[in-house]
């Protein structure tokens, strides 16, 4: 009788212990993109087996996105550029963020090893942003002295960590100053 009473409880405890918490499983997704060196990248397939720390940016953003990129760089430095963690700056402005623009951006930030900036076809990038729940909208346009029109984007402020099985496991506000410390602590705890 006692066994019959406790069996369901033990069963549910076992199930609960086996369940790993994650935000989303990207294992069934496949986005064909391109990096700053014009090399084809298939996300997340190309990164399986590694942790990926990714921030979402556009290079015409002068204020918030540099904070996201700075945080990515700081996390990599604080972890001593580990081989099992890849860093990605994912552009949500593929129209302007071509591979050559991203290459220049990479050079300005002085990052290279295990650190890529990726862009791609507008439709594929939009699909990827949807799956990451990264939202963007044109905020306003301005006209330069030369008569060129420039648009700016409102956008989600997000940094995510994907585990080696392509599961999104961590999400923070990408530009926040506390993010490097939090992600470094998280990665040190789970790796």
């Amino acid at each position, binding site marked *: 009788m006692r066994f019959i009473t406790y069996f369901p409880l033990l069963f549910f405890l076992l199930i609960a212990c086996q369940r790993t918490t994650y935000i989303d499983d990207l294992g069934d997704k496949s986005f064909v993109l391109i990096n700053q060196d014009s090399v084809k990248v298939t996300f997340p397939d190309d990164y399986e087996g590694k942790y990926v720390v990714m921030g979402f940016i556009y*290079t*015409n*953003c*002068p*204020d*918030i996105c*540099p*904070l996201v990129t*700075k945080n990515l760089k700081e996390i990599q430095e604080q972890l001593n550029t580990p081989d099992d963690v890849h860093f990605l700056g994912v552009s949500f402005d593929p129209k302007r963020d071509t591979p050559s*623009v991203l290459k*220049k*951006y990479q*050079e*300005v930030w002085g990052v290279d090893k295990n650190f890529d900036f990726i862009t791609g076809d507008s439709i594929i990038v939009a699909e990827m942003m949807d799956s990451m729940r990264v*939202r963007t909208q044109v*905020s*306003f346009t*301005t006209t*330069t*002295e*030369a008569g*060129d029109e*420039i648009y*700016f984007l*409102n*956008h*989600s*402020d*997000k940094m995510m960590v994907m585990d080696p099985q392509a599961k999104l496991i961590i999400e923070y*506000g990408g*530009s926040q100053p506390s993010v490097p410390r939090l992600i470094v602590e998280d990665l040190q705890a789970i790796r």
Partner: protein
Amino acid sequence: MKKTILLLLITASFVSCEQKKENEPSNEAQITSGNIDIIDGWVRPGSAGMMTAAYFTIRNGTASTDTLINVTSNVTDDTQIHESFEQEGGMMGMREIGMIPIESNSSAELKPGGMHIMIIRPFQDVAEGDIVTFFLNFSNAGEKELTLPVQQAAPAQ
């Protein structure tokens, strides 16, 4: 007995008020120059034809409100005064604010994630170690020349 308790309470509240005053930032104590002063300025590195930003603190030590109404620079034809802000749902936005009023004996801080000078499509790369010149136009103080270092982060304070 009641009088003693009342006296203790009054004394405690006076002490508490004094403590709060000591902890409050006092702009008047810091700003005594009688001038508009620009401090802690820097420019974020950027590429030619792209975007970057300048940050600094404006201290108004004069007797009246002054307003930053225009900024020009030697590295671009296009500078604007912008502000980043947080929207609902974790969205970040940016808007042109046009001018920055600074009340007498107070300061305005332009910093990452807040107000900044937008440097639109610089003529050349703005690299770490470079110096960028700005001309800040104030409604009362007139034009002030400012040279700022290009660096990856705000200067240590």
